[in-house]
């Protein structure tokens, strides 16, 4: 029973990791850039959610606030790509790494200046509510997070497989040049992907804030764990990212309970390093050798 309880808590945490990892993978799939500011985007989304929903601030209903926060962050992310990242279009991956790290710093500063550096949490209609099921006590927040994640993943899956824009994104990720020749506006597609990734991180951020307190520096470590999730999943694969997130979440919970203190924090990273060493392309690898 105890293990099952831990498992569900871990899965809920893992869902948030998975959502942030989805954000990574979205951007990576479209432009082969890794967004090191993804964790900070989650933080920003969480603060936006708090600003819209909490009673002493925007006082909007939860769902409305969630939509508003996602739209806001989506727009911000779109603008970031349109006005900052597009300036280095075509430069090597390395430039993008450095640029997004710096953008993360900026987001952190902006959030700290607007909302302060003290931890705040989100007021939700389901805060502290508990569902008893047999011997299990489940937080409603956890269940909602799991449900929301499943829903969002399904929508994204439909989007990539079924819509014109989704297919265009896939194409431009495979070969920007060829996609451009086929009439896909690669740069605009990139910006839209960033917007989409912003929306996903805002949702993840709001869900995160529903579970615990948020402060501006929370993004960095969270982002790195979400990285670990994306890497374990193989970076190119959406379900892989989600699965990687779940794995990280569950392992973290179990390590916190059973591993000696000090070792438990290492567990997610150790898992990632292990996966990288044993299967350099992640569990769902799409590795190929360069042709010469």
């Amino acid at each position, binding site marked *: 029973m105890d293990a099952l309880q831990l498992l569900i808590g871990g899965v809920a945490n893992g869902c948030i990791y998975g959502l942030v990892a989805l954000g990574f993978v979205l951007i990576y799939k479209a*432009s*082969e850039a*890794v967004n090191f500011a993804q964790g900070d985007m989650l933080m920003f989304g969480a603060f936006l959610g708090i600003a819209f929903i909490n009673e002493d601030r925007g006082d909007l209903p939860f769902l409305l606030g969630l939509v508003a926060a996602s739209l806001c962050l989506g727009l911000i992310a779109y603008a970031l790509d349109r006005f*900052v990242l597009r*300036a*280095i*279009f*075509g*430069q*090597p*991956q*390395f*430039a993008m*790494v*450095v*640029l997004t*790290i*710096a*953008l*993360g*710093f*900026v987001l*952190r*500063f902006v959030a*700290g*200046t607007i909302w302060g*550096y003290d931890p705040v949490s989100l007021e939700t209609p389901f805060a502290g509510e508990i569902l008893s099921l047999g011997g299990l006590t489940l937080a409603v927040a956890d269940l909602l997070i799991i449900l929301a994640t499943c829903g969002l993943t399904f929508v994204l899956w439909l989007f990539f497989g079924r819509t014109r824009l989704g297919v265009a994104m896939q194409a431009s990720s495979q*070969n*920007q*040049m060829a996609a*451009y020749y086929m009439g896909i506006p*690669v740069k605009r597609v990139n910006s839209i992907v960033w917007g989409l990734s912003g929306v996903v991180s805002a949702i993840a951020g709001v869900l995160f804030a529903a579970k615990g307190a948020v402060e501006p520096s929370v993004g*960095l*470590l969270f982002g*790195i764990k979400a*990285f*670990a999730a994306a*890497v374990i999943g193989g*970076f*190119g694969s959406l379900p892989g990212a989600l699965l990687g997130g779940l794995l990280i979440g569950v392992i973290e919970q179990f390590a916190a309970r059973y591993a000696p203190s*000090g*070792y438990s*924090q*290492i567990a997610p*990273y*150790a898992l*990632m*390093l292990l996966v*990288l*060493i044993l299967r*350099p392309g992640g569990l769902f690898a*799409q*590795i*190929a*050798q*360069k*042709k*010469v």
Partner: protein
Amino acid sequence: MRVHFKRSYDEDIRLFEDWRRMAKYAVLLAIMIALPALVSGYFLGEVTLVLIYCIAGMGLMVLAGHTGQISLGHAAFMAIGAFSNLWFMDQGMPFLIALPLSAIFTGVVGAIVALPILRLSGIYLAIATLALSIIVEDIAIIAEPYTGGVVGVFAPPIEFFGTMVDRYGTPNLFYWMCLALVVLVTLGYANLLRSATGRSFLAVRDSEVSARALGVNVTRTKALAFGLSCGVTGIAGALYAHFVQVVNYESFLVLLSINLLLLVVIGGLGSIHGAFFGAIVVGLLPQGLSILRDFLQGTVGLDISAYPGLDTMVFAVIIIGMVIYEPLGLYGFYMKVKTQWQLFPLARRDMFRRSKSYLKTERLR
């Protein structure tokens, strides 16, 4: 523009192209040696820190700039250098033996860690090293017998044949010691770049397949670059430990790793000069900001200390500007200005224009 006519192959092998260049560096070195007589003790301390950053920057430059492997975890190797140095000294070894030992130890650890990690390339390597940097924080607490756990380790005084070298007691001696190490590391680095080993690093950076076809053992080369890089970074870590006098698990956070990478980017990837330029920016930025703060408060009455974290923000904005407008860093900028000066007034506007292209996939390496 001066044209130098070469008469023997040795002129290309020499460190300095001609006597003018050698004289320039000699003057620079003389000024650096005389610095304690020229500036205040406080400023000297800041310059000492810059020198330590220079060593760390050169360590990372070998790897990121010349071998093309991104590491986001070099603070971890600074930590290993610092703790191992203090541990060796704690065993009764003099600093002169403990420092090279800790450099070798860090280098060997680096090379061993590198072997599995370096099978990864590009972004995966960056993430793996980032994870390494995070883990080190926890490991520093777990490995209490060697690292002092949460409390940390105090740096014992350094003794050279009866002379005490201490950051506060004898700041001049400590400064000269750091300067000497900077000169040594720079010489070694310059030697490396003019040799077959250095060229094999460049080869691995630019094209692994053709490096392999030309007989370069790519795996070994990467591990060597990683080991050398970590060894040098370890020296910086050891000096840093003596500079701040006490180190614990919080001395080498992820943020330091990131700062080191940003340092080499600001300075200019792929040049020794870049490491120095970057170290000056990273080391002196807090000072510059505090001067700016006093200035703003004195003149317009704006109190920017009300915005905590402003220094990282400014740093970030500098980086963003740099990546967008000057991808070759400060050194690239310096070269441009220099070329324009030499050609004056014949420089053309488009001379340094970059060609824009669509991204080549880096998934297939």
